[in-house]
């Protein structure tokens, strides 16, 4: 079935079909609609979900943790300051190995206050032990949200699915949806690892672990993330086989013979495809990589895909404030370090606080990369900005 849906509506629709046991959420722009629409599904009796209208995002994540630890399938959505307020609980969700799915509508973090898109909120949560999957459009958001439930429950790790605030969350697109039965059959029953409410088999959850045992628990948790990519690959493959819809981990667009490429996450990939097409028509060998999975770091995918690229522009929708580029730049650069053949990497920070990015600006990036081709790596300025006055 084909429907017209905004990104938020597409995610809410996916949540309706997932029919989670518990949704605990607090509204924040631009993700408010997801829970607002979902709460109307609850009020209309279309879903069986226990909806908990909590008093903050900290409580929203706390309630999801408690629900998931009690054997329930739990979901929520948030943005920006809301995700920042959840920060403490994010680590607890992953440490307890609870498969919660959180839909993040990317928005900048204050200060100064801004409600529009950049990736600072989810990238700032990168070390919290959550799988993070970025989506380009409403279709990808719909498909990924459904897959995220299954990935989380296979990996026993929480998953963030992200869309760009307003650009995707409030933009209406044509999406193809599955039937309720297909979604139900695909995600199956949630089989929890443990259940706090099983009174005959009491457990202690979240005990104090002192220096003699804390380290081992963290090492075990790291292994969960090491294995996560296998689960993502399996679920995406199964989704493709069942519904003939391909979800990528790292998408290459016209990259087979490309010498120059850019890599980005989220909706900018769509814009960049136009720029690539325009330049290809003029005979330039340029390509685009769209990184979908930011956590775990998909090192092997990146190493394989980027080995023949001469210069790579890393488009980062976050100012890392590190004096050496943001997380996307640093991680991709680090992944390439041991490779015998690797591109020169240049950081392009763009689109902060919802600043528009156009195909023309991306074409200029490509032309700049082209002009650097014959320069030595040491002579190239590494840290650049797109359209900042």
């Amino acid at each position, binding site marked *: 079935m084909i429907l017209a849906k905004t990104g938020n509506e597409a995610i809410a629709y996916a949540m309706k079909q997932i029919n989670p046991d518990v949704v605990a959420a607090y509204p924040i722009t631009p993700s408010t609609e997801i829970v607002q629409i979902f709460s109307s599904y609850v009020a209309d009796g279309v879903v069986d979900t226990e909806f908990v209208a909590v008093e903050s995002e900290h409580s929203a994540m706390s309630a999801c943790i408690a629900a998931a630890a009690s054997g329930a399938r739990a979901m929520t959505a948030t943005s920006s300051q809301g995700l920042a307020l959840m920060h403490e609980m994010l680590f607890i969700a992953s*440490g*307890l*190995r*609870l498969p919660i799915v959180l839909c993040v509508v990317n928005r900048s973090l204050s200060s100064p206050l801004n409600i529009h898109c950049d990736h600072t909120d989810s990238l700032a949560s990168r070390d919290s032990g959550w799988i993070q999957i970025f989506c380009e459009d409403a279709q990808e958001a719909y498909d990924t949200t459904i897959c995220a439930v299954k990935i989380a429950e296979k990996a*026993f790790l929480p998953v963030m699915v992200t869309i760009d605030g307003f650009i995707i969350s409030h933009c209406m697109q044509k999406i193809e949806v599955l039937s309720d039965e297909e979604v139900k059959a695909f995600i199956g029953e949630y089989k929890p*690892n*443990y259940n706090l409410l099983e009174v005959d*088999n*009491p*457990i*202690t*959850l*979240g*005990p104090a*672990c002192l220096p*003699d*045992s804390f*380290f*081992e*628990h963290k*090492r*075990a948790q790291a*292994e*969960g993330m090491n294995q996560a990519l296998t689960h993502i690959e399996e679920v995406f493959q199964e989704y493709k086989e069942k519904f003939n819809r391909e979800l990528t981990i790292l998408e290459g667009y016209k990259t087979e013979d490309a010498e120059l490429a850019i890599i980005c996450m989220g909706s900018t990939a769509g814009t960049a495809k136009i720029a690539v097409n325009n330049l290809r028509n003029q005979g330039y060998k340029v390509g685009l990589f769209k990184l979908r999975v930011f956590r775990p770091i998909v090192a092997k995918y990146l190493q394989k895909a980027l080995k023949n690229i001469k210069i790579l522009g890393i488009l980062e929708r976050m100012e890392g404030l590190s004096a050496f580029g943001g997380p996307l730049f640093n991680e991709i650069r680090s992944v390439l370090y041991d490779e015998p053949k690797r591109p020169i990497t240049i950081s392009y920070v763009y689109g902060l606080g919802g600043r528009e990015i156009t195909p023309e600006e991306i074409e200029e990036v490509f032309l700049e990369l082209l002009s650097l081709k014959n320069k030595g790596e040491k002579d190239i300025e590494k840290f650049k900005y797109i359209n900042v006055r």
Partner: protein
Amino acid sequence: MNNSSNNEERKECLIISWKDLKQGALIRDLKRIRENKTGSWRSLKPIWNKEKCINCYRCWMFCPDAAIIIENDKVVGINYDYCKGCGICANECPKKVQAIIMEREVK
């Protein structure tokens, strides 16, 4: 529980590798919690006076570590294996009664 098996369990607990851990740092074997004798944290020690005690159970109700021992409906003493010496029992004991006083712990 006998002490030697306790010690063996404890030893096993200390040398366990991350590969043998349950996902999510949970404890299924609740017996192990008994081995964690939190009484060793104490710097003040409650001293209970049987003659003064009126068995009002206020200390028992408020003790966060369930360390007030009751037998046949009567307070019979304090479980120093788990009492952390917080002093809540002494504080809750009625002022006119003062059956529990806090003393410096001697180790």
